[in-house]
């Protein structure tokens, strides 16, 4: 009995760590480097995963001193009809700059811009190569099985653009024989609908997964117009969207330790561009945008004894049309890496290359871009309490200089007894971002631009303990990052052109506290995330720039999320509070009010013919707060959503 309770606590603690960002291997031990799922067995209501190695390890294990947030499929389940933007906004304290409900949404980690966070799907970049960034409202959670969010500079691990952090989205085979799947339907306020279905068929050696979703909303909600005297109540115009996506994956085991994977997805987004409230009654200014994104990859991976390898070739095509402007690009990429691991050490090395052909009328040259990188990663655990990792990456890119990107991490387990765990960690890294194709070629050749380079140092501690039916975990990270050559566009007479801002400094802290308790059939957990970000331009392009030393635009000092959940089978209720602090627009005197949002949800799990059905009801912005994330773009008032998920 004691062992079972201990095991349950252990699992709960593990989940707390997953949510808080501590590495999985921190709990399981240094042998469990590979998180790739594989087989599962059920113990009462708890699913325990074990793994076997069929490829190289995730690069995250080479960052022992960094903050990596692991989000598994169960945590993503309640957000299946949402976009990645919704998930980040609701369940992390990372700031998101949003231009309306379901509209453009750009992540900002530690005060950096959205182009400073890399985003991949099974290792394939999701950033549009011309823009060099990803609109998170375009990424459907429905497709993915897990996610890792690496907070902090990580270019040595994930490559170009990981100055603020990196998001890795993954899809995985389940190897559950037979035909399985789910149907998810939801309907909500403002004519919001979502329908998705996923179908898996597996023989144990071969697995196929097909998934499709369609989402749409009118977003015709009311708001108070802050550009008209008396703040008249108006109905929002031109804010609808209709999106669909389809994904197909095939997995084929070869022998006992090799795997061939083919993935392809296609997304089609057709979206009105929500007008600023000052243009809400000006139909002549309304516009829409069409995006079509194709991603496909073929990979082969395997392992034998202490050796493993992974190779991937991918093709992507992005098309965006705004009025008469078309921005398109095709990209072919490959990656090959090998790994050697022993009990105390893992060495991983690899090469990757990209060839991009943009099709943009505003480029004055017939641009084609080639990139090639090489990297070497090392992890060494000399004693059970000490974990060390390091990495280096370098490369060559057309018309750009690529700096070396090293990293060094260390973690020390100071206390590990009687249910108490205390770990101290630290990391230093240098990351970079090559100017995007638009930065370099839009309206001319801007090859004078330098790569953005960040140097980051951070240190933190993870503390946790469990006692019978109670567990507590805490992490805190303090960081400082200097970004040189930050790229922004400035007026240059009649045109705007990009320039490098000499130096931007970001410093702050991240805090996470998780508490979980169970009594009889009740289970309660509460998690708090808090971010303090201080990001300022310390060396300006223009010496007398009045904003020197002031917080950057749209960067709140404080962000906080509090997530409470109580379960008693078959019900789960949750209450989310999210606070976004005061921030300014480009005008340092123009301050946007902070806002606190309250969301509630209730779900009921039942069976129909031995099949699981989950019925969920959500109320967002319960207090009906009128707020803007980006000035003049009203966000949604109180809204409701009802969803039904049928698993078979």
């Amino acid at each position, binding site marked *: 009995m004691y062992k079972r309770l201990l095991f349950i606590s252990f699992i709960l603690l593990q989940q707390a760590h997953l949510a808080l960002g501590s590495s999985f291997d921190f709990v399981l031990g240094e042998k469990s480097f590979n998180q790739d799922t594989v087989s599962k067995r059920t113990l009462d209501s708890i699913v325990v995963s074990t793994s076997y190695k069929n490829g190289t390890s995730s690069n995250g294990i080479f960052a022992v001193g960094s903050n990596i947030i692991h989000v598994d499929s169960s945590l993503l389940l309640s957000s299946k009809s949402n976009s990645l933007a919704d998930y980040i906004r609701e369940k992390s304290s990372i700031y998101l700059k949003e231009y309306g409900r379901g509209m453009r949404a750009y992540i900002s980690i530690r005060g950096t811009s959205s182009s400073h966070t890399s985003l991949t799907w099974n290792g394939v970049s999701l950033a549009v190569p011309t823009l060099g960034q990803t609109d998170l409202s375009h990424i459907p959670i429905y497709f993915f099985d897990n996610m890792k969010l690496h907070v902090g500079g990580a270019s040595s691990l994930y490559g170009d653009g990981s100055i603020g952090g990196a998001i890795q989205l993954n899809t995985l085979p389940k190897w559950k024989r037979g035909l399985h799947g789910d149907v998810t339907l939801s309907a909500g306020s403002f004519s919001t609908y979502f329908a998705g279905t996923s179908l898996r068929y597996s023989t144990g050696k071969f697995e196929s997964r097909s998934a499709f979703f369609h989402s749409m909303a009118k977003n015709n909600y009311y708001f108070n117009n802050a*550009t008209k005297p008396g703040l008249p109540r108006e109905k929002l115009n031109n804010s609808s969207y209709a999106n669909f996506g389809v994904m197909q994956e095939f997995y084929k085991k070869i022998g006992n330790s090799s795997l061939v994977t083919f993935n392809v997805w296609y997304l089609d987004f057709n979206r009105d561009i929500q007008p600023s*409230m000052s243009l809400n009654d000006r139909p002549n200014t309304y516009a829409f945008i069409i995006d079509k994104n194709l991603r496909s990859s073929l990979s082969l991976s395997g392992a034998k004894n202490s050796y493993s390898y992974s190779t991937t070739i991918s093709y992507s095509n992005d098309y965006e049309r705004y009025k008469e402007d078309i921005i398109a690009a095709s990209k072919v990429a490959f990656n090959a890496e090998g790994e050697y691991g022993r009990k105390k050490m893992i060495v991983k090395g690899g090469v990757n290359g990209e060839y991009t052909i943009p099709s943009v009328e505003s480029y004055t040259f017939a641009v084609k871009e080639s990139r090639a990188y090489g990297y070497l990663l090392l992890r060494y655990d000399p004693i059970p309490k000490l974990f060390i990792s390091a990495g280096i990456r370098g490369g060559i890119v057309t018309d750009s200089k690529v700096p070396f990107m090293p990293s060094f991490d260390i973690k020390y387990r100071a206390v590990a007894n009687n249910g108490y765990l205390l770990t101290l960690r630290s990391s230093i890294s240098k990351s970079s971002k090559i100017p995007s194709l638009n930065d370099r070629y839009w309206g001319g050749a801007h090859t004078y631009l330098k790569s953005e380079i960040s140097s980051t140092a951070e240190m933190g501690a993870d503390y946790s303990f469990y006692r019978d039916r109670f567990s507590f975990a805490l992490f805190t990270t303090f960081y400082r990052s200097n970004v040189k050559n930050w790229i922004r566009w400035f007026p240059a007479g009649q*045109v705007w052109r990009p*320039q490098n801002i000499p130096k931007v400094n970001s410093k702050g802290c991240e805090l996470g506290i998780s508490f979980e308790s169970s009594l009889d059939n009740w289970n309660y957990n509460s998690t708090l995330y808090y971010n303090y970000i201080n990001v300022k331009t310390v060396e300006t392009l223009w010496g007398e720039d009045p904003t020197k030393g002031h917080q950057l635009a749209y960067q709140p000092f404080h962000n906080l999320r509090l997530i409470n959940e109580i379960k008693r089978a078959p019900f789960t209720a949750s209450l989310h509070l999210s606070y976004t602090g005061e921030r300014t627009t*480009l005008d340092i005197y123009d301050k946007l009010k902070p806002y606190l949002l309250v969301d509630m949800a209730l779900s009921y799990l039942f069976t129909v013919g031995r099949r699981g059905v989950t019925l969920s009801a959500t109320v967002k912005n319960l207090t009906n707060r009128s707020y803007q994330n980006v000035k003049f773009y009203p966000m949604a008032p109180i809204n409701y959503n009802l969803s039904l998920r049928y698993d078979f």
Partner: protein
Amino acid sequence: MLRKNLFKSFLVAIAALSIISCQKTPPIEPFDFEQKVLILNQGNFTEHSASISLYDEVTGEIQNRIYESANGVSIGATIVSGSIASMDEVFLVCNNPDKIDVIDCKSAKLKGTPITEGLESPRYILVGNNRIFVSNWGYEYTELPSGFWEFDKSFVAIYDRATRELVSKTEVGTDAEGMVVMGNRLYIAVKEGVKVFTIVNDNLIHERTILPNGFYGGAKHFVLDHSYNIWASFPEKGVVQIDPVTLEVLKIVDVPIDFMDGNIAINSIGTTIYTYNTEFDSNYAPVESNIYSVDTNTGVVEKFFSGNYFYGVAMSPFTGDIFASEVSFTSNSLVKIIGANKELKKSVTAGVGTFRFLFF
């Protein structure tokens, strides 16, 4: 003699049309308001972040975002020009969205409903007791090989000042900008040069287009000198003095002028014109930005003051100080107050894209 008659007709026209542009016409009456300077911050076009600031020449203090403070709402647009009328109202001409806000000079509170009817990318405004003239680019454009747009159906809209209702619209050429009224003539800066129209009731009848030999590119803005000659800015070339009666070009002065805005200013006694211009290197970085002075009598050009990126200049009629703004449009602007001795007296931080100074 001719000049005297012209001056009389000018005064009569003012009485009749009451077209007064405080920024463009020389001061006729002494200032009886406090020494305040209304600073217009154009804002970033995509952010609709226009704002206005108020600078006190006595205390040297600046108050930013006074529109928001007075009205509880934002302008939510881009200001492209402004004018003080009858010393009690300020007209703010805005794009994106197109509107003209009217605010009270003393309280900065909105007066009435903004003008929106008939506006299509409005540019410049002349306000009188009875009529309001607004130049507009229009919405129709042609894309040039360079990628720039030109608006060849630009027009002037005339409004009744009391009711703010649209009275008439007249096409005037391409890329209409600044205007000035003298007598019964409307002079408007367009890409074709300076177009002169005769005002007949509320109609504009084209009389002549003035473009000096060898000139290319359009005219942008006007000032009047001490002799009530018109000076027009041609960013491709310099400033051109025009006799408002004969419509002959009297003088051409080569002087750098900002190509984007093309605005020029003149001192209170009409003897010195101020222009500004920024030079960029091959990497589009500003390498030299200067304010130039032009003697209206001799045509002598002098470099008056240097900075990083000027986007507006004006002279205080009360103190004689030069007000110049340095901008980036991605952050706040710096207003520099420069004495007649070319010494920097003070710098204050204003809003985004500071470009005009209106003196009470």
